[in-house]
């Protein structure tokens, strides 16, 4: 990230990664029509366009359909345990600022079993990009209501319809201290998904991208009204946010100019119920990052370890000849 231009150019000439450099030898095992496929494609496009070295790229995930994504990326992947993708990713990043860290998680993984980590990851604000694949249902365990399922959702655990209002990942995230980047994308507008991921990647801090994602198996038709009617999509634009291509602009005419530093409006947009906002809701690059705050002034060296151990031992040493150094403390 700190390479100078000439080094960067050299690397471009030497390697020049193409899309297939980010595709693993495993074919995705998602269902036909699954929105995760669009997210994977956007990720791979991003890596290529940013020319990220696959060996310097780490995709961390938890458990669920979303969390299979690292298997399909040719990068270092860490398919962990349910709900814990974020603390694992934080550990990866804490001493390795040279690594590009992505987290892919789902609505169950992030907003239910991993909710504590989600809140605190926002607060730590470490340099990483978090993709919340939100299909509003548990898929891999075969259709149970998730915290983001709409009220009345019928599922195997709510056969008569769920009774609780869904949790809104956008308003929750925006409410956490140190939040620095919140965006929303949808799998059925791939160009904007890509543009949003790109903004997220370039943000210094934790960028949280909620991606509404279709599950054709268990939530068929959930987003049909929005997919068919572009006017129900509210596209957020700004000089510091998304800038739309003429093609996108022609189809998605319901646009709002929104300053990503305007938290009040971001919260209002996040709470919109009858439309789906897409774009950068909040972006404050000035929020300090935990990995920077904890980076320390100097790297650990054997000499440093020896010195500190000597100082600490001196404080508690009993010298045999009573020749205790006077300035030991």
């Amino acid at each position: 990230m700190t390479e100078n231009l000439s080094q960067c150019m050299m690397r471009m000439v030497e390697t020049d990664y193409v899309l297939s450099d980010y595709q693993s030898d495993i074919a995705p095992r998602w269902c036909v029509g699954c929105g995760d496929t669009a997210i994977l494609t956007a990720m791979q496009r991003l890596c290529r366009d940013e020319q990220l070295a696959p060996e310097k790229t780490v995709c961390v995930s938890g458990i669920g359909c979303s969390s299979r994504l690292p298997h399909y990326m040719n990068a270092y992947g860490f398919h962990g345990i349910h709900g814990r993708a974020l603390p694992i990713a934080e550990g990866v990043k804490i001493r390795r600022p040279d690594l590009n860290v992505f987290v892919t998680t789902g609505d169950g993984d992030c907003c239910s079993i991993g909710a504590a980590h989600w809140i605190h990851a926002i607060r730590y604000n470490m340099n990483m990009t978090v993709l919340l694949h939100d299909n509003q249902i548990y898929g891999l365990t075969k259709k149970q209501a998730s915290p983001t399922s709409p009220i009345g959702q019928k599922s195997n655990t709510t056969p008569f319809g769920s009774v609780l209002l869904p949790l809104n990942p956008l308003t929750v995230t925006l409410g956490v201290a140190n939040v620095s980047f919140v965006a929303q994308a949808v799998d059925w507008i791939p160009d904007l998904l890509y543009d949003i991921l790109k903004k997220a990647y370039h943000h210094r801090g934790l960028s949280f991208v909620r991606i509404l994602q279709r599950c054709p198996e268990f939530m068929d038709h959930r987003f049909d009204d929005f997919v068919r009617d572009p006017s129900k999509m509210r596209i957020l634009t700004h000089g510091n946010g998304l800038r739309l291509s003429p093609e996108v602009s022609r189809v998605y005419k319901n646009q709002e100019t929104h300053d990503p530093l305007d938290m009040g409006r971001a919260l209002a947009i996040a709470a919109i119920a009858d439309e789906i906002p897409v774009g950068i809701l909040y972006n404050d690059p000035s929020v300090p990052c935990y990995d920077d705050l904890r980076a320390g002034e100097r790297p650990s060296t054997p000499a440093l370890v020896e010195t500190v151990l000597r100082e600490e031992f001196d404080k508690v040493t009993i010298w045999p000849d009573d020749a205790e150094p006077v300035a030991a403390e």
Partner: protein
Amino acid sequence: MGNTAGQAIIEPQPRAPQPRPAVVLKEHIIEIISDSGEGAQRCGQSFGAIAARSGNGIWTVEIIPAEIQPPHRSVAGASGNRIRLASGPVSNGGNEADLVVAFNEQVLLSRLNAGEIKPGGIILMESKWRTDRNAGIAASYARVVDDIRARGFRVYEVPMEVECLKLVPDARKGKNMFVLGMLCGIYSLDEGLAQAQVARIFGKKDQKIIDANIELLNAGRAWAEANLDLHFSVPAKRSTQTQVVMNGNAALALGVVASGMEVCAMYPITPATSTSHYLSSIFEKVGCVVHQAEDEIAACAFAIGASYAGKCAVTVTSGPGLSLKQEALGLAVMAEIPLVLIDVQRGGPSTGLPTKVEQGDLMAAIFGGHGDAPKVVMAVSTIEDCFYSVITARKIAETFNMVVMILSDASLATAQQPFARPTFSEDWLAPPVNQSAVPLDAKPYDWDPRTGIATRFIPGQPNGMHCLTGLAHDRGSHVAYDPEINEEGLLNRSRKLAALQTTLRLPPLCGGDSGEMLLLGWGGTLGAIEEAVGILRAEGLAVSSLHLKFLQPMASGIGEVMKRFTHVMSIENNWNDPLSDPLITPENRRYSHLALLLRSRYLVDIDCWGNARGQPLKPAAIVAAVRAKLGKE
């Protein structure tokens, strides 16, 4: 080194205006007990430090209530310190206390009720309660003093507060230094060393504060010399070796620094946390990080992430935290990520006894996770061991790509003991993170059939890209559910433990090579068991002990050793069903952890003795248990 051997009989004397010649003792156990916040702990620690610097053998034990500010004058709120003071080295807290300083009668009752004070022992009581304005308090004090006098304790009423108020406006803050001076006088500890210790305590503060406290110290000593017929000397011999004095948790923290680990992820929990407190104060100086995570699970996951990225990490916890981390530990096992976990055990289950000792986590450490999850489990048995074990653990973790657990306990956590000052070696440290290119045909789980070890690929290594997973996987780290592939993974992860096992050596026996009874122990009971063995052998009983460092895997040869003894019994600070209970039979009896492990491995009828009373096992209790077992009561 029996405690009784060092006990001198002191005839009551009229108050002597001049210092009397000191009665020479081999050892004495001293306790200072107060309400929380009155400074008894600092007084005790300082007394221990002065004694250690004088060349005495010491072992200190903290007496800690679970609350920050428990009610004043309450039995449950007793806070303080025990110091076992001896001429030679000591390895445990010993038996009952010989001399107790109590700041009120309620905290004294807590120690009396627990059976921690020797019958006929010396008790120095703060006397101000006798004239307390609250008639109930005054009556309670008088009743307890009368009662313990009647029970044969030697009670001295000391006007601590009255004397302190002559020097300082707030006696509650200065009383502990007065008591420290009194104790230094009683035990003939050097005045200069005592004053230097006070200067050390208040080193960062104003000279006026140091001077005021030294004044209190001197007043305590003068008062004791003028008013008490107690004057002892526990001859000290300064070690020819350069030594350091610290408690177990501090030694663990320094061990983390010395091991070359750069990341410690933790969540606050008693009694482990003081390790992280100390580490937090020094770790950044060496360019490293203590991360206080949002919970125990996150702490473990964070450490796993750091280890995965090439920086072997440590997570520090106690019982409940160990339970919470189990799923993440399984991930580290399955994905073969090195990790060091330090568990400072406390009484359980559930929240249990947060500040008290128990060896209750051995089974949870070895078998706590679901599925077959081989991990290395080692136990520390001395303060010095705390330091070096972390270095060893990191090396094993990174050599075998395994989880290595270190079991300490609440007693070792706060016990202070001198040991030889370690000499730094670069060999302690972790090598730099490997970032070299991986051969193109190499696989991330290319298990070596001889050892089960696979060379792991670390992010940043070109050509090493793969997706690590907690799912069953093949050599290429591809998710695989085939029976053969699953079995291959199980076999190799287990094989690593066997490979490590071949390198282990059995610790030496304490006592003789054969005999009537072999005692088996692990962890913080080492000192008490070996002291008991010494006493029993002096009585002519052929008793020996074997103390295990590695519990999983265990060194070869334990079976051979056991064959050379008529009886084998484990001594553990954890629960076992007593056969005296009418419901308990040899068929339904639940054994102590190590006994159960060894019974299943060696098919030997190993008995067990111990308890889970939240107190360290006492040498005298072990002696009595062995005598009973051998029919020599």
